[in-house]
C-alpha cells in the first residue's frame, strides 16, 4: 500500500458508472472536474506571479503592476539577490542541518522502535507510554526554556542547537514501530539461531526491509527542519549561519521598491525544496500521508 501509486479504486469503479450512461453523473463529474481544475490553477498563481515579477524590471512593475508579460525579461534581480545576501551560505546551512537531522532521527528512532518490537526488557511498556505521551507534547511552545537550556550547554549559535531537539521524534518511532511489527518474526528468529547479534539483526535484517518507513521519516524530518522558523531564528543569530527561512524573513518590509529582487529571493528560497518535490512528489505525498502528523 505504501508504494501503491495506481489511481484510486474509487474512480475506476466510477468510470464504469459513467459508461452506464447516467446523464446526471456525467454532468456532475464535468462540474467537479471544472471546479477542481480551476481551483488548482488558482493555487498555482502565487508561484507563477513570484516568478514573473522576479523577471520584470522594477520600473515596469511600478507602472503596470498587474501586467503578466514584459518585453524586457531579465535575470538581473537574481544575481542582485544572490550577491546582496549570503544566500549560498543559507543554502549550505539549511542543507547541513536538515541532512544531519534526517540521519540522526532515522537511526535513533528506528533503533528504539526495533527494541520496542523485538526486544524484551523491563520498562518496555513504560518507554512505549512515554513516547506515546510525547505525541502530545507541543514542543514549539517551549522555545523559551529550550533557549535557556541550550545557553547553559553553550550550544547556542551552533547547528547542534537546531539539530538536537528535532532528533527524538515520537511520530517517527511510531512509523518505524508499525512497520517493523509487520516483518515476520521467523526472519529474526532464524538470524538469532545463526548467532547474529541484535545489532546485526537490526542493521542487516530489519533496516533493509524498512526502506518505505525510512523514506517516510526522512521526508518528514527533512521538510520540517528545512522549513523550521522560530527556533533557528532564536539560536542561529550570525548572518552567515542562518537557515534559508530565517534569512529570507529579514527581507520583509526591507525595501519597498525592489519588487523584483524581493521576489527573486523568495523564488531562490523556494527552489531547492520545490525541485526535490517535483522529482519525488508521489513519495513525498505518500510519506506525509503515512506519518499523518505535522
Amino acid at each position: 500500500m505504501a508504494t501503491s501509486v495506481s489511481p484510486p479504486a474509487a474512480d475506476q469503479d466510477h468510470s464504469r458508472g459513467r459508461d452506464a450512461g447516467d446523464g446526471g453523473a456525467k454532468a456532475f463529474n464535468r462540474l467537479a472536474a471544472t471546479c477542481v481544475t480551476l481551483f488548482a490553477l488558482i493555487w498555482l498563481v502565487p508561484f507563477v506571479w513570484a516568478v514573473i515579477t522576479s523577471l520584470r524590471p522594477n520600473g515596469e512593475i511600478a507602472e503596470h503592476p498587474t501586467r503578466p508579460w514584459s518585453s524586457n525579461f531579465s535575470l538581473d534581480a537574481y544575481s542582485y539577490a544572490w550577491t546582496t545576501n549570503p544566500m549560498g551560505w543559507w543554502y549550505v546551512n539549511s542543507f547541513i542541518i536538515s541532512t544531519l537531522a534526517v540521519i540522526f532521527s532515522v537511526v535513533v528512532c528506528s533503533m528504539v522502535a526495533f527494541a520496542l518490537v523485538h526486544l524484551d526488557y523491563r520498562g518496555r511498556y513504560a518507554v512505549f507510554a512515554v513516547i506515546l505521551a510525547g505525541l502530545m507534547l507541543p514542543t514549539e511552545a517551549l522555545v523559551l526554556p529550550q533557549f535557556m537550556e541550550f545557553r547553559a550547554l553553550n550550544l547556542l549559535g551552533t547547528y547542534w542547537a537546531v539539530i538536537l531537539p528535532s532528533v527524538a521524534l515520537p511520530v517517527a518511532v511510531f512509523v518505524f514501530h508499525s512497520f517493523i511489527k509487520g516483518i515476520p518474526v521467523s526472519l529474526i528468529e532464524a538470524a538469532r539461531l545463526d548467532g547474529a547479534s541484535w545489532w546485526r539483526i537490526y542493521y542487516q535484517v530489519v533496516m533493509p526491509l524498512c526502506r518505505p518507513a525510512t523514506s517516510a521519516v526522512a521526508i518528514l524530518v527533512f521538510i520540517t527542519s528545512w522549513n523550521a522558523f522560530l527556533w533557528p531564528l532564536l539560536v542561529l543569530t550570525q548572518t552567515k549561519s542562518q537557515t534559508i527561512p530565517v534569512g529570507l524573513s529579514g527581507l520583509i518590509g526591507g525595501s519597498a521598491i525592489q519588487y523584483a529582487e524581493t521576489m527573486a529571493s523568495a523564488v531562490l528560497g523556494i527552489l531547492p525544496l520545490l525541485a526535490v518535490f517535483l522529482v519525488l512528489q508521489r513519495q513525498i505525498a505518500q510519506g506525509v500521508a503515512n506519518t499523518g502528523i505535522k
Partner: protein
Amino acid sequence: MTTTSSLGRPAAGVGTSSTPARRSDTPERGERRAGWLFSAPFLFLYIAFLVGPVLIGIVISLFNTTTVQPGLGSFVGFSNYADVLTSGDFWDSMWHSVIFTLFTTPLLVLLPLLFAILASRMARGQWFYRLAYFAPYVVPSSAVCLIFAFMYTPETGLITNAFGWVGLTAPDFFGTTSGAWFAVVLLTLWWTFGFNFILYTAAIQEISGEVYEAASIDGAGPWQQIKSITVPLLRPTMSLVLILQVLASLKVFDQIYILLAGGPNYSTRPVIQYIYDTGFTSYRGGYAAAATMVYFVLLVTISAAWFLLRRRRSAVNA
C-alpha cells in the same frame, strides 16, 4: 488512536505476522541489555530536549529570570503566574490564537475534504492536483510571506487589484485588524491546504471499490455515493485532521509574525509571539516562562481530551 492506525498502514503491505516477538520464557540478560542500549539514544535525547524544557520552564517560571543573563535571578514564588493571569495583553494574545483557530479550522478541515473527494473522482490528472495543492506545503513560511506581502501591497498588489476586478474595494491588509486577519487566513489556507488534502486523498484511496460498485448497481448517483459512502467512511480521518488542525492553528506564529509582526497595534499577535516579545525582546524570562506553562497546559489538555475521547469511543464501538 487514529494517528497510530494511520501510521499502521505501511505494515499491511509487508506484514504477515502482526504479533510482536513475544516468547514465553524469560528474556536473557543480553536481550534485556540490548533493549536498553537500543532505547538509550532516543530516551536520552527525548528526556534532555523534550522533557527537559518542560521542567526548566516550570523552574524558571518561579524566578525573576533575565532571559539573556546566566543564572535564575531571585525567587518570586507564583507571582509570575499571578501577573500572567491578570495581564490583559496575555489574554488578548491567547484570544488571537483562538480567533485564528476558529477562522482557519473549518476552512482547512472542510475545503480540502471537498476537493479531495472531487479530485479523487477524476480518472486523470491526479498528479496535477497533487502538485498544485500540495506544492505550497514545502515552501518555507518566510517565502510564502514575501510573496503574499507583495500580492497584498496597496495599489500595486495582485490580490488588491483582484478585488477591483470583481468590483470590490480591497481592505487595508496591513493597517486594519479585519484586513490583517483576512490576509493571514488566506495565506494560511493557500499554504497548508495541501497537507490535509493529502491526508484525505490517502484515506479515500483506502475505501474499497466494491462499496461503490454495489452502490452504483443500486442506482446511486455520484452525489449520493459521496454523501452516503465517502463522507461517513472518512469520519475518522476528519476527526484526525480536525485535531491536527486545531493544534497546529493554536501554535500559529510564523505567518503572523513575519507578515504582520502581530500588527496593526498588536491586534493579531498570537500567544507564541507574546512569549517571544516578553521573553526575548524584553528579557522577562521568568514571566514568559509562566505564560509558556499556562499555554502549554492548555495545549496538552486539548490533546489529552481528544485522545481520551477517541479511546472511549473506540472502546464503545468495539
